[in-house]
C-alpha cells in the first residue's frame, strides 16, 4: 500500500517544468544587474561555470531550475522597474487577482512577519510620499507603482531591510537565500504565491521598453580598420590644446611668456603631432632616405639645385587711369600647401619624358616659353638663367595643367630626368587638418596664444624639415621644396583666378602676397580662414596723364 502512496506522492510532486527565458536573455539580465556569475552561483548553490553553462545553452533541472527561474524573473522585474516602467505583468499574473494594493490591507500583511500596516500614513523612506505600511520599521510603499521615486535613484541601503524582510514572505519556497537580489516588487505578489509569477506571460513581454536606453548607453562605437572593425577611440589626444593649457598654467596666464615658450618648442611639438597623426597610417614616414646630389646643399650656406618657382612678378604696364590696388594676403599659405603629392620613400632616378601621376619628386625640365608675362606671372617664377632647371612636382604639375586643353596657356614642359618615388597626398593630411582645426578654433575664440603656436608649428616644420640642424628627426629636403612650391603654385592659381574673373593682377610676390585692382570681393572671400584672404594694404597707383597703356 505504501507503494501506491509513494507513487501518488511522486505524481503529486511531478510538476510542469518552469519555463526559462532564452539563453541570451539570461545572460543579459544578469549583466544588466552588474552581477557576476560567481555571485549568482553562490546563492543558487552551484558553481560559476554551471551558471555559465546555463547562459550558453544548457538548461538546469529540478529544484535549482525553479531557483534560477525565480532569480531571472526577479532580475527582469527589477530591471523593468529601474527603467521606470510599471510592471503590470507581475500583478496581472497573480493568480485570482488576489491583492490589490490598499484593497485588503490585512491580507497583504498576513504573510510577512515584518510588514505592518500603519494606522496613519507616514512619509515613505523611498519617495517621501505618504505610505500606509512599514517593513521592519521602515515606512514605505509596498507596491513600487505607488512609490513616486525614480527607482534608479533609490539608495540601495534602503532596499536592504526590505529584502531581508522579503525572505520569510516565501515560506517553503526554495528561493529563501538571503543574498538573492530580490526585486522589491515581489512584495506586491500575493503572499501565498510569492516568487512564482506566471512566467508564461513573460514571454510576450520580453523586449521591455526599459531595456532600450541601457542598450544604447552600452553600445560600443566602432570604426573600420583594414578588413576588420576596431573599437573607436574618442579621437587622438588634443596635443595642441594640452600644450597651450600647460604653458599658460606654467606662466600663470602670462600670455606673452606662454607664447614665447610655446614658439620655442614648436618644432619638437610639431614632430610629436606628426607622429600622433601618423598612427594607423598606411605609410611610414621615411625620415632619413638617401638624398640625390641635386637635393644636397653645395656648401654649408649654399643652396641645392632645386628651383622652387617662387613668384616675384609685377605687371610692368597698367591700363590707363587710376587704380586702387589692394594687397591681399593668402591666409596660412604653407598650411594649405601641406596637402601636396609627397614622395613616400627613397627617390629613384629615371630619365625620359613621361610623367607618372602616381609618383612625385623633382624633375629636370626645360620650361616652356611664357607669352603672358604682361598680365600673368610666369608659373616658374622669374628665372633669369635660360636652359633646363630642376623643378619640383607641384611646379611640373602646374605647367602640365596649364599646357593642357583646359587652359592652353603654354606648351608642355620637356622632362629630361627625374628623381621620384611613389607619392600620396594624404601623408600630412591629418597633420594639416589638426593644425587647421586648432587654427580655426583659435580664431573663433580669439585665442592669440594658440594662433601663434600653430603658426610657429607649421611654418617651422616646413622650414626645418630639410637638412636643418634645428630638426634632426626629419631630413626631407625634397618635401620642403615640394611644400614650398605647392604654396607658390597655389598663389599662381589664385592670380590666374583673379585674372580670369576680370581683375587686374598687379603684383604676385613671396608666398602669399597678391596685389589686385578691381572688385576683388566678388572673387575672394575676405576673412581669416585658410580659404579666405586678408587685406594687407590698399594704395593707389597711376594717373590718367602719366600712365600709358600697354
Amino acid at each position: 500500500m505504501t507503494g501506491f502512496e509513494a507513487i501518488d506522492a511522486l505524481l503529486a510532486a511531478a510538476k510542469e517544468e518552469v519555463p526559462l527565458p532564452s539563453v541570451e536573455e539570461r545572460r543579459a539580465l544578469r549583466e544588466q544587474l552588474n552581477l557576476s556569475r560567481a555571485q549568482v552561483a553562490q546563492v543558487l548553490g552551484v558553481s560559476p561555470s554551471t551558471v555559465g553553462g546555463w547562459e550558453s545553452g544548457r538548461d538546469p533541472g529540478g529544484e535549482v531550475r525553479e531557483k534560477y527561474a525565480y532569480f531571472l524573473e526577479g532580475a527582469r522585474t527589477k530591471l523593468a522597474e529601474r527603467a521606470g516602467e510599471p510592471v503590470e505583468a507581475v500583478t496581472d499574473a497573480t493568480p485570482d487577482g488576489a491583492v490589490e494594493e490598499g484593497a485588503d490591507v490585512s491580507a497583504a500583511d498576513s504573510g510577512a512577519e515584518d510588514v505592518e500596516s500603519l494606522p496613519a500614513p507616514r512619509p515613505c523612506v523611498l519617495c517621501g510620499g505618504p505610505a500606509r505600511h512599514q517593513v521592519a520599521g521602515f515606512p514605505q510603499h509596498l507596491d513600487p507603482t505607488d512609490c513616486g521615486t525614480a527607482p534608479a535613484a533609490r539608495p540601495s541601503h534602503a532596499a536592504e531591510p526590505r529584502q531581508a524582510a522579503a525572505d520569510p514572505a516565501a515560506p517553503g519556497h526554495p528561493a529563501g537565500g538571503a543574498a538573492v537580489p530580490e526585486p522589491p516588487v515581489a512584495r506586491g505578489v500575493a503572499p501565498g504565491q510569492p516568487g512564482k509569477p506566471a512566467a508564461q506571460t513573460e514571454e510576450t513581454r520580453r523586449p521591455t521598453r526599459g531595456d532600450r536606453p541601457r542598450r544604447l548607453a552600452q553600445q560600443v562605437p566602432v570604426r573600420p580598420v583594414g578588413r576588420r572593425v576596431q573599437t573607436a577611440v574618442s579621437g587622438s589626444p588634443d596635443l595642441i590644446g594640452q600644450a597651450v593649457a600647460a604653458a599658460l598654467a606654467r606662466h600663470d596666464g602670462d600670455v606673452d611668456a606662454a607664447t614665447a615658450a610655446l614658439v620655442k618648442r614648436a618644432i619638437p611639438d610639431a614632430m610629436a603631432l606628426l607622429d600622433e597623426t601618423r598612427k594607423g597610417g598606411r605609410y611610414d614616414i621615411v625620415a632619413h632616405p638617401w638624398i640625390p646630389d641635386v637635393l644636397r646643399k653645395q656648401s654649408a650656406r649654399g643652396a641645392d639645385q632645386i628651383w622652387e618657382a617662387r613668384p616675384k612678378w609685377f605687371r610692368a604696364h597698367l591700363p590707363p587711369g587710376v587704380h586702387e590696388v589692394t594687397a591681399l594676403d593668402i591666409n596660412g599659405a604653407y598650411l594649405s600647401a601641406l596637402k601636396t603629392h609627397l614622395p613616400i620613400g627613397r627617390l629613384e632616378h629615371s630619365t625620359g619624358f613621361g610623367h607618372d601621376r602616381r609618383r612625385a619628386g623633382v624633375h629636370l625640365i626645360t620650361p616652356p616659353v611664357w607669352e603672358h608675362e604682361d598680365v600673368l606671372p610666369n608659373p616658374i617664377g622669374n628665372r633669369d638663367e635660360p636652359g633646363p632647371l630642376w623643378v619640383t612636382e607641384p611646379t611640373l604639375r602646374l605647367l602640365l595643367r596649364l599646357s593642357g586643353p583646359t587652359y592652353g596657356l603654354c606648351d608642355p614642359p620637356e622632362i629630361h630626368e627625374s628623381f621620384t618615388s611613389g607619392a600620396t597626398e594624404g601623408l600630412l593630411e591629418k597633420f594639416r587638418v589638426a593644425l587647421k582645426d586648432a587654427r580655426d578654433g583659435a580664431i573663433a575664440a580669439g585665442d592669440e596664444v594658440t594662433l601663434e603656436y600653430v603658426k610657429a608649428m607649421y611654418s617651422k616644420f616646413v622650414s626645418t624639415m630639410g637638412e636643418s640642424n634645428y630638426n634632426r628627426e626629419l631630413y626631407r629636403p625634397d618635401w620642403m621644396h615640394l611644400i614650398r612650391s605647392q604654396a607658390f603654385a597655389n598663389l599662381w592659381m589664385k592670380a590666374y583666378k583673379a585674372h580670369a574673373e576680370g581683375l587686374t593682377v598687379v603684383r604676385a610676390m613671396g608666398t602669399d602676397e597678391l596685389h589686385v585692382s578691381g572688385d576683388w570681393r566678388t572673387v575672394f572671400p575676405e576673412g581669416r580662414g585658410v580659404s579666405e584672404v586678408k587685406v594687407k594694404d590698399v594704395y593707389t597707383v597711376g594717373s590718367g596723364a602719366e600712365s600709358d597703356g600697354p
Partner: protein
Amino acid sequence: MPERHIEFGKFGARGVRGHEAVARQLDALAGFVTTPVTARRGLVARLHYLTRTPHARRAAREAGLTVTDRTLRAWLEGTRSPSRRNLERIETAYRTVRRHNVARYLLARLNREGRGTRVEFHPVNQSQVDRPHQRVVEYRTLNVRRWDGIVEAWAADDQDALDEAWVTHAVVDLGSQWGQYEYVTNIGFAA
C-alpha cells in the same frame, strides 16, 4: 638565408655594408672641417684644432702626428708646407682626435638616457638584379638603445669592431631576416 653574405652582388644587387653606412652617418654628425687638407684654409683649420691646447697636442701626438713643435709652428706660419705624407698624417690625426672628442657627446645624444634613437634601414638596391632573383626586402626601422659599443668602435676607427658592434647591438634585433640588412643603401638616424 645565410646571415652573412658570402658573395654579395653576384646577381647585381648594390649596397654598402651596414657598418660603413653607420660610420658615414656618424662622420656626418660629427662634422669635420669640410675644406680639404690640401687647401691652405683646411690645413690651418686642422692644425689649429690639433694645437689649441696642450691636451690637444698630446692627443695629436698619440694619433700619429709626431713632428716637433717647431715644424708645427712653421706649417702654421706658412714658412714651410707639409709633405704629402705629412698631410695624410695631419688628416688622420685630425679625424682621430675629432672623433674621440665628439664621441662622448654623440653617445649621450644617441642613447638619449636610455630612450635610444630610431634607425632606418634602407634595403639594397636591386634595380640591376634579374627579375627572378629579386627578393622583397622591406624598408625597416628599429629603435637602437645601446650605442656604446658602436660609437666606441667608430671613435677608434676600428672597422671590424664596428661591424661586430653594429650587428650584435642593432641589426640582429631586426629578427631572423637580419641578414638581408647586412648590406644596405643607407642607414638613417639623427642625433
